[in-house]
């Protein structure tokens, strides 16, 4: 518990309450409206109370307006997730493709909804489901989202979203569970507005 608490405390170093919340919302909306696509590498770290080291996965991420996400895990396991509006395709290296409905996995739906709202700059949509606290430091903005719905709160304690002040792209996402176990996603090597073929998001 102590390790977890320390990890949690360490996750928000020297963040202070955001000075200009309307300004942040306006900047986020403008930048996301200009962004037609984003590609990046990502590192996923799962912090569990029972483990001293996080469980790490790395992969490649693509987003294309309006509602297309390709989430490709490369190590330690190959796994592909494509979100194409309401449909989600999952596939591992041995398995045939499996198409599911995001509504069948609450936590996954929360994550995909959050990503979509975030990339579309739709803070209003987020405010309907979460109470939001706003923070910042020299390099980043951070929004801490606490679910209003009791059912969602059973799975998620809070979601922390970090935005790079330079280009307002998402740099880190943290999903904290009620047990204080949490998953951290770090986005690096971000490339904006490069052409991404629709084939990459195809679900058959």
């Amino acid at each position, binding site marked *: 518990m102590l390790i977890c608490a320390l990890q949690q405390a360490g996750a928000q170093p020297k963040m202070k309450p955001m000075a200009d919340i309307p300004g942040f919302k306006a900047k986020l909306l403008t930048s996301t409206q200009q962004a037609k696509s984003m590609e990046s590498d990502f590192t996923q770290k799962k912090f569990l109370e*029972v*483990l001293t080291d996080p*469980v*790490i*996965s790395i992969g490649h991420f693509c987003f294309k307006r309006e509602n297309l996400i390709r989430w490709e895990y490369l*190590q330690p396991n190959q796994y592909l997730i494509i979100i194409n509006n309401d449909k989600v395709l999952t596939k591992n290296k041995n398995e045939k493709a499996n198409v599911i409905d995001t509504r069948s996995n609450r936590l*996954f739906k929360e*994550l995909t909804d959050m990503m979509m709202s975030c990339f579309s700059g739709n803070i209003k949509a987020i405010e309907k489901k979460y109470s939001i606290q706003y923070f910042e430091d020299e390099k980043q903005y951070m929004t801490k989202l606490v679910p209003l719905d009791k059912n969602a709160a059973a799975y998620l304690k809070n979601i922390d979203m970090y935005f790079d002040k330079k280009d307002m792209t998402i740099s880190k996402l943290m*999903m904290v569970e009620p047990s204080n176990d949490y998953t951290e996603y770090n986005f690096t090597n971000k490339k904006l507005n490069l052409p991404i073929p629709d084939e990459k998001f195809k679900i058959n």
Partner: protein
Amino acid sequence: MKNLKLISLIICILLSACSATGGLKNTGKHVVHRAELFPLFDRLGEKKEAWFNISIQFFKNEQSGQLLVKQTNDTTTLVLFMTVVGSKIFDFAITPHDFQVLSCIDPLRKKKILRMMEKDFRLMFCTNVIYESSKAFISKSDTAIGVYKLQVPGKSYYWVNRQKRVLTKIDHHAFPVGGARVNFDYTDSARMPKIHLKQKGIKLRFDLEPFKEV
């Protein structure tokens, strides 16, 4: 009368061929020591933990993710399942005499489902017998293959390869019907095997493949 004898003979041959230990010699009742079963936990290494890619097939549904098996102390085994994106599905603490649900998503938090998962994980990771230093049993063996019959409860047959020093199969029979079969598939006998569990009677299957962390 002749026909009756012939039928009895055929039945005996069939029963012998169908038995879990067909073809092996019965060496009588002995005491089995934990190490003779080559339990998987002896392969966990210093960290006392192992990671598997897991696929659970229940009728037409399939859920895949990652499974952590960790020995937290001499008698407690933690089994934690999370999806690839990091969402925790369940988290159980298993001891020889207790099963604790630390967390579990609502759709699985049902008595029957939990009971079934408890049985299956106990079987796969030998948490029923692993902490016992010795136990009464009937052994049937040749030089390489050993089959141990244990009451755990129900009848369970543990197949080991003594030359390779590995547990290769567990065949569990529940009364009056049911049970499960677990196969251990070793690519390297020093490492964790692939594990396949198939329930008898219902379409439930677990496939586990060990992986190395980044």
